[in-house]
């Protein structure tokens, strides 16, 4: 890999603008927008479950054209600011880009990726709500939804290199982000963070995505919520995105949360709904393309 990360980010950023979204959301957007009495909350619930659509929507709304007093991080905010019809037509234009193929040259499992992203998003929001802190639960959801976005971008636009990374991860039994550094020169957390930073998403979000495989500072609520959610999603087999390694909680986080991962899971209560909701979204998408 000879390109500098900034150059990769420019190239990938341009590519992502044309990137298709996940099959289920494309199908649902086309279905629900045929009804003139479309329920706005249905549209929100479709867009916010698709990392590609969410990325594209927030990228446009955070662009320089609207000058919002603060960065927009939730689909609900986008709907309040731009209005239902505009968001609906934006979703239709995203749907017009086609659907992300379930099979890709990198051999990356898109369904498991989507399951993992959705469950991490919901869990990050729950962890933030349950344990408190200075982060916004909506921002934590977004961090969870997008934390591995770099991987889907690699799979789509650098399939050869990413395939190699997945192979190294398997053969050497090392975490995927380390294998990516070997095969691509940069890992998904760096690329994901650079993309959201380039698109003027909040700095804290870029920071959480960037550091989700690094040092987890116990003071950073968004990063902690994301890290914990990421591990719970893998530990409870709610999905993964090529990396099966469940990291132990560092001692400082055990202090902050008053226990280890199992303790946190127990305090969150019944999590079956999180997995079921994500599964219904990710799974029907697969059937739709069959």
């Amino acid at each position, binding site marked *: 890999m000879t390109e500098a990360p900034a150059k990769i980010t420019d190239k990938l950023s341009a590519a992502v603008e044309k990137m298709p979204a996940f099959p289920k959301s494309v199908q649902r957007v086309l279905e629900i927008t045929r009804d003139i009495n479309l329920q*706005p909350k249905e549209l929100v619930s479709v867009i916010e479950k698709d990392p590609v659509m969410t990325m594209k929507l927030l990228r446009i*709304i955070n662009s320089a*054209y609207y000058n919002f007093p603060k960065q927009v991080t939730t689909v*609900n905010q986008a*709907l309040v600011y731009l209005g239902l019809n505009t968001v609906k037509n934006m979703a239709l234009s995203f749907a017009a880009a086609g659907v992300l193929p379930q099979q890709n040259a990198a051999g990356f499992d898109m369904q498991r990726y989507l399951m993992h992203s959705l469950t991490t998003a919901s869990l990050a929001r729950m962890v933030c709500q349950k344990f408190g802190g200075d982060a916004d639960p909506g921002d934590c959801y977004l961090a969870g939804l997008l934390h591995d976005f770099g991987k889907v971008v690699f799979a789509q636009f650098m399939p050869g290199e990413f395939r190699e990374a997945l192979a190294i991860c398997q053969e050497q039994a090392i975490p995927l982000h380390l294998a990516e550094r070997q095969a691509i020169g940069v890992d998904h957390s760096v690329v994901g963070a650079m993309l959201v930073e380039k698109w003027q998403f909040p700095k804290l979000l870029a920071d959480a995505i960037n550091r989700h495989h690094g040092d987890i500072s116990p003071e950073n609520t968004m990063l902690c919520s994301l890290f914990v959610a990421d591990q719970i999603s893998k530990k409870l087999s709610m999905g993964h995105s090529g990396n099966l390694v469940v990291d132990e909680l560092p001692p400082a986080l055990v202090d902050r949360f008053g226990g280890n991962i199992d303790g946190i899971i127990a305090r969150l209560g019944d999590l079956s709904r999180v997995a079921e909701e994500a599964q219904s979204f990710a799974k029907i998408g697969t059937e739709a393309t069959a």
Partner: protein
Amino acid sequence: MKVKFWGVRGSIPSPGPKTMRYGGNTTCIEVRTDGNDLIVLDGGTGIFPLAQTLLKELPVTAHIFNTHSHWDHIHGLPFFIPIFIPGNNIHLYGAFDPISGAGPERIMSIQMQYSYFPVREAEMQSRIHYQTVMPGEMVSVGTATVTPTLLNHPVINLGYRIECNGKSVFFTGDHEPHYNIYVPGDDGYAEYQALVEEQWQSIVESIRGVDILIADSAYTRQEYPAKKGWGHGTFDSSIQLALAAGAKTLYCTHHEPTRSDDDLERVFAEALARYDGTAGLPAIRLAREGDEIEI
């Protein structure tokens, strides 16, 4: 500053015996600053009679601020005669549309296509300047300033606040107050309610203390439930906005195209009666084509 209504009708021109008193032309408001700079708010069919009066004062420099790109706010623009006359300067301001990825230039290029209009865009002989404006970013026009505010409509809609020597006018264009898309008990209800209230407050602040508020009051309170989400306000929502912002005078506009003059006066009177005796109530009037106000 002077404000003159050239078109007060919503949706579609509605000429005829039942709309003679308030007028059938679609939205167009002329604002003259103290320095006689010409600001035009929207180019509905009302801009055509306005154009006739401008032919006496050539060359013309006009600053046209488009609230949004729906037909009733743009379809007079190709008939704004000064655009065809060399020596005139026309500035068209408007929002960036995230769907088309274009600014106000598209309003002219789309309308002046061969199938829809006999003269091509390239044949306009005046100097036309297009400027995409952003919410909160003030634009200077001679002795006045114009500040856009993002409002709520099925397409991006900017309200404009014009200030000149301590006097001010705010025009909403088309606007429906934000409402919660969730019902109590839904997961997203509280979050969305907070967003709705934040937007309300920010809009009120952008209108704060204006001498004249001209607001979309298309529907009655009774009609509104069937029109929810269509992007228009009611007499009641406009009165509440004027009250909250401390506007001195409210002009209700965007009259419903099927409403006769008699009906318009009746539903307006009914709405006013509900606020009888309310403290701080501004003067409230119906916008009427041809009326001129000096502030």
